[in-house]
């Protein structure tokens, strides 16, 4: 089992950042690596169990199922049900925590998955540096410009 953990501090309140990332169908609006997304069967994007079907900038298609969504804990968990990445049992969680001394929040994005041993490094880098840190960097840029 591979575990990836990436965290950062974003200069906006947890409420503000959460409103930008809460929409399970909203990746293209904030994540630079995602081009388009839809919820399968036209369902609501905050219905736990819904499936998002999206494409990455390099043309890859990924389907992910929403496993947990908490407006109380600013947290969202999901699993990959179809992708060409070569991962199995992939479950990820994106979570915010308020930093009470200042208008900022702590954000963490973690994942656990299985893959062929030879691909561990590449996938760790693609997911950890590319997807997770790349997403955080975009959020940090967005909230520092305001």
């Amino acid at each position, binding site marked *: 089992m591979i575990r990836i*953990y*990436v*965290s*950062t*501090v974003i200069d906006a309140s947890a409420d503000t950042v959460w409103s930008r990332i809460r929409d399970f169908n909203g990746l293209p609006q904030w994540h630079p690596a995602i081009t388009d997304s839809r919820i399968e069967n036209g369902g609501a994007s905050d219905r736990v169990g819904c499936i998002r079907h999206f494409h990455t900038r390099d043309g890859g298609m990924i389907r992910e199922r929403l496993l947990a969504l908490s407006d109380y804990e600013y947290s969202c968990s999901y699993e990959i049900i179809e992708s060409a990445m070569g991962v199995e049992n992939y479950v990820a969680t994106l979570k915010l*925590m*308020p*930093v*009470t*001394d*200042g208008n*900022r929040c*702590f954000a*963490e994005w973690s994942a656990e998955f299985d893959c062929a041993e*030879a691909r561990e*490094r590449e996938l760790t880098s693609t997911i950890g540096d590319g997807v997770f*840190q790349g997403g*955080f960097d975009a959020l940090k840029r967005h909230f520092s410009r305001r």
Partner: protein
Amino acid sequence: MLQRIVRSTIIDAPIERVWAVLRDFNSHEQWHAVVERSRIEGGEKSDRVGCVRAFTLKDGNRIREQLLTLDEREHKSTYCIVEATVPLQRYVATVTLKPVTDGGRTFWHWESTFATPPGMERELREMVAQGVYEAGFENLRRHLRTGNDLQARGTTPMPTALPLPSRRVVLRRYGGPEQLVAEDAETPAPRDGEVRIQQRAIGVNFIDVYLRRGWIPAMLPLAVAGVPGMEAAGSVLDVGPNVGGLLPGDRVAYLGPVAGAYCSVRCVPADWVVHLPAAVEDETAAALLLKGVTADYLLRDLGRVGPGTRLLVHAAAGGVGLLVCAWARRLGARVMGTVSSEEKARVAREHGCEHVIVTRDYRFADAVQRHAGGADVVIDGLGDAARDENIAALARRGHWVSLGQASGPLAAIDPDALLAKSLTFSRPVVFDYVATRAALAERADRVWAALADGSLKLPPIERHALAAAASAHERLESRRTVGALVLVA
């Protein structure tokens, strides 16, 4: 009504350093201004879950609190008040730390729930939120900024700022082993970004021999103190300013691109240093760090060795050779090796080398071609005497990795010599594969994990006293040793 208080902040220090303070249930009198005195009742250890601390506060109040949870993995500590002169009822608090991975800082979350007598809610909420939590954030910041956490309790800052006596081995001039001479010296206090290490075991590598011979003068200029050695293991004596995550007493090993390890006390940049798991002995670490990390990058990065790869390892019973054989076998490779004696052949086989070629005259290409139809990757520490044989032993699109040159520096290679079979040639040096602290830690962790799960078998370790470094070099150059050599300080 149950009150809930949450306060959180970001501390500009790595989580290891913040946690080292907060995990100690008895540490508050050292850093929190509201606490006058703290002791653990019954003389228990402060990390025993269930222990009770007795606080006397600056304002005269007394509080007894019990440790309910101590979680090293989640960096979490939960405790409750069992008795207090302030009317906090059913008070349960949790401290949680999380690493901020893009910047080496720490997120600190502190929360509690409690009840109060009617009418005292506001007063007690303010006391907990501002008087204890927010003040605590500021107090701990100051504690870390002044480096107070880096001093062992009950000791004065000295002798941290003083030079310490050290025994070292210097190279008088480039040449044979007899040029290595032991002498007394002093090791200054660690400077900015450095740690001072009490070394107990020092790794001996072929690069030390090359440096001694004067083959790489840039790495060991004799105008400065000519002390060889690239790696050692021991424990941290003290740390200089701006060093995070390392504390006096930590068991560590290091590996770095500047020579100087043949000594008993040394200052090195903290970026070279890795923590040692409890299961890894000093001598094991000194024997394995450079060689194991070398095996890791050779197999994973450079050689891309996997199932079915035909691998030829020269000096297969040497320090690096045994590690490469064992690990490559575990990765599914077909491992061939050359050695210079039957005794070494036996050890190489024990470590996973399936097809051993015993040769004393650098002839092996025919044997490799007959056995496997050529090698996809050659790990070569032999150097010039084996150059033509290496080219002949390689399969089509084979990769020749020139790691060392025990027989003499490689003469220039005509690019067209590679053309006939589309060969590639690499001349790596380990330091480029561990250029950051994170890269070094990642590779070292893989080596210790491989040792623990049996992917790597501990090679035989030959020990020499530090002062006898000359005889260790003689042994290494004699081609009679098996496995790794370490100097014991």
